């Protein structure tokens, strides 16, 4: 820590209680006209009011309490979810995550279809979003003329500000018909032989959800990647260019290779968002718990099954199974986010904040 910090701590810690006895003398010397013993009103005010160890330490304790409340929130969420899903945890054990039965009537619950749906949609979303996000980040940081830079980053961040439910609304009324009538048939005709694009196409399903998710996670990945690329020192770029590289070779060798860990982190943050995204997915995925190879098939994700069935869950076991799904989602996103944050921190630590 720089020495100035230590000075501040020492001053606040020790000098105040000791100060008042000294002050009258100082003022008496400096300012004899005021009549010797009377301290200046400012000194008087300060030595009487609000100082002292008690106010300082209680203020610090209050701030500490608020900071620790963040731990408390996470712990509370974990605790309450574990307690409320106890019934299903005990009854199904680990089989809950490997069984594909989801039959509220007979009381058989297994989360496999939802895990499949979540993984499939997130994977599709990453597959579409990552190349595009990298392209945007490369364009904004390396290629784009200066005056265009700020508006383009602003527009991509605007995408992040659109609420999930509005994406869902747009998906239901614009994207779903488009998938059903235009994109779907084309995909069946050209790529139907792969088996991914066969079967009836209602417009709702894994692929539509994946596209919506891709649009939603794009801004996160691209803005973080941009920040990480900006953190690469210019000397790297100049060094590669000086060796006679073209601009793309400079980007590949000098920028992308240096920031690859951070980019992985940004992609994982996007993944974390995709795993937990609820409303837009619920509206376009078709809400049907099945595992199908076709990307046109209606499916369900961990988050969307909670959104869709929670309020109409009858019976304690049903409710507790849904809460267990929530618990699983909580733990998975925490792990993914933690890894992502560590990777991003490892890269951007020490870089100037907001360097442009």
């Amino acid at each position, binding site marked *: *820590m720089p020495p100035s*910090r230590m000075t*501040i701590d020492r001053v*606040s810690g020790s*000098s105040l209680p000791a100060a008042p006895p000294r002050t009258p003398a100082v003022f008496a010397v400096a300012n004899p006209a005021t009549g010797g013993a009377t301290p200046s009103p400012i000194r008087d005010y*300060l030595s009487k009011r*609000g100082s*002292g160890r008690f*106010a300082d330490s209680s203020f*610090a304790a*209050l*701030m500490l309490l*608020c*900071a*620790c409340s*963040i*731990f408390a*929130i*996470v712990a*509370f*969420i974990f605790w*309450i*979810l574990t307690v409320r899903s106890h019934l299903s945890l005990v009854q199904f054990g680990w089989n809950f995550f490997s069984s594909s039965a989801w039959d509220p009537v007979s009381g058989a619950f297994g989360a496999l279809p939802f895990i499949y749906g979540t993984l499939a949609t997130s994977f599709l979303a990453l597959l579409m979003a990552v*190349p*595009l996000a990298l*392209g*945007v980040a*490369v*364009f*904004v940081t390396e290629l784009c003329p200066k005056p265009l830079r700020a508006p*383009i980053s602003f527009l*991509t961040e*605007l*995408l992040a*500000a659109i*609420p999930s*439910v*509005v994406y869902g*609304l*747009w998906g*239901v*009324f*614009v994207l779903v018909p488009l998938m059903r009538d235009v994109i779907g048939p084309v995909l069946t005709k050209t790529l139907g032989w792969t088996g991914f694009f066969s079967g009836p196409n209602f417009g709702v399903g894994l692929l539509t959800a994946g596209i919506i998710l891709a649009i939603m996670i794009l*801004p*996160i990945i691209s*803005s973080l990647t941009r920040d990480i690329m900006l953190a690469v020192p210019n000397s790297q770029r100049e060094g590669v260019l000086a060796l006679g590289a*073209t601009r*793309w*070779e400079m980007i590949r060798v000098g920028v992308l290779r240096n920031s690859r860990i951070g980019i992985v982190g940004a992609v994982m*943050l996007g993944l974390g968002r995709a795993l937990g*995204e609820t409303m837009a997915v619920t509206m376009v995925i078709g809400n049907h718990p099945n595992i199908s190879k076709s990307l046109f098939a209606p499916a369900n994700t961990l988050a969307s099954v*909670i*959104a869709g069935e929670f*309020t109409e869950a009858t019976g304690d076991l049903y409710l507790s199974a849904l809460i267990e799904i*929530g618990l699983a989602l909580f733990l998975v*996103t925490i792990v*993914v*986010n933690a890894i992502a*944050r560590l990777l991003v921190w490892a890269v951007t630590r020490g870089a100037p904040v*907001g360097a442009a």
Partner: protein
Amino acid sequence: MSTQPVIPPTQPRPMNFQSKAMRFNTARRSATNYFVGGLAVLATFIVLAPLAAILFYLVYKGASSLNLAFFTHVPAPVGEPGGGMANSIMGSGVILILASLMGIPIGISAGVYLAEFGRGKVLANAVRFTADVLNGVPSIVMGIAIYSLVVMPQKHFSALAGGIVLAIMMVPTVTRTTEEMLSTVPHAIREAALGLGVPKWRTVLSVSLRTASPGIITGCMLAFARVAGETAPLLFTAFGNQFWSFKLNEPIAALPLQIFVYAISPYDEWHRLAWAGSLVLIVMIMVSVTLVRIYASRGVLKGGS
């Protein structure tokens, strides 16, 4: 003394830049360069296309359904024309005010701890990390957690529960922004205050926070805009309501919830209202985000999106 003669370095064979292989290589490299540059431009257009499409549809479908009744009437029963979303807009306002009252003070205090008291401490790093991770927890999980914690024991949905969920979602963003803004306040200002004998708590409140206040207000607005559009956590907490309600321990309507209900309904009239509601919501959020953009430096927005 060495008597060995210095061996002159062998002259490297000059490269023949005009050779066929070399020319081909240069052409290939330059072609790749242009190709990838083109791909990056294309990617940018592909990304901006959905944004344009969404905004276009919102204005196209939403603006035609906006009228005075939208802002003054409660929803009409199915089959009857007219009706509005006045109670949803008001409900959203109530929930957001509740959330801000709870979330912003806690968030700012935690940020103050991180920036003023916890510099370099392990605990502070842990808090910072937890806040970042909490930021990534899906909102639906927060929703069922608060449902289990507040709604289940009370046995009914309430506006208060909705406020608590959104408050929890605001805390990490506010904390991180406050910390970032406070760390830009120069030490000299704090030292000047402390040097005058002002106690530390007073320095923090009247000097550090005051200096950083534009940035902190920006961060709070950003958090506000983020949670204003949240639907998933409100499904099981605020629940929604077709009528006026001002009571905090009763279900209350919220704009995003109502949009969701209308969007998945089979009625054209309700779809129309959903578009109009989305337009209103988006305009509210965009205005605050744009204000943020104008006031804030880039650093503020980093963790927020």
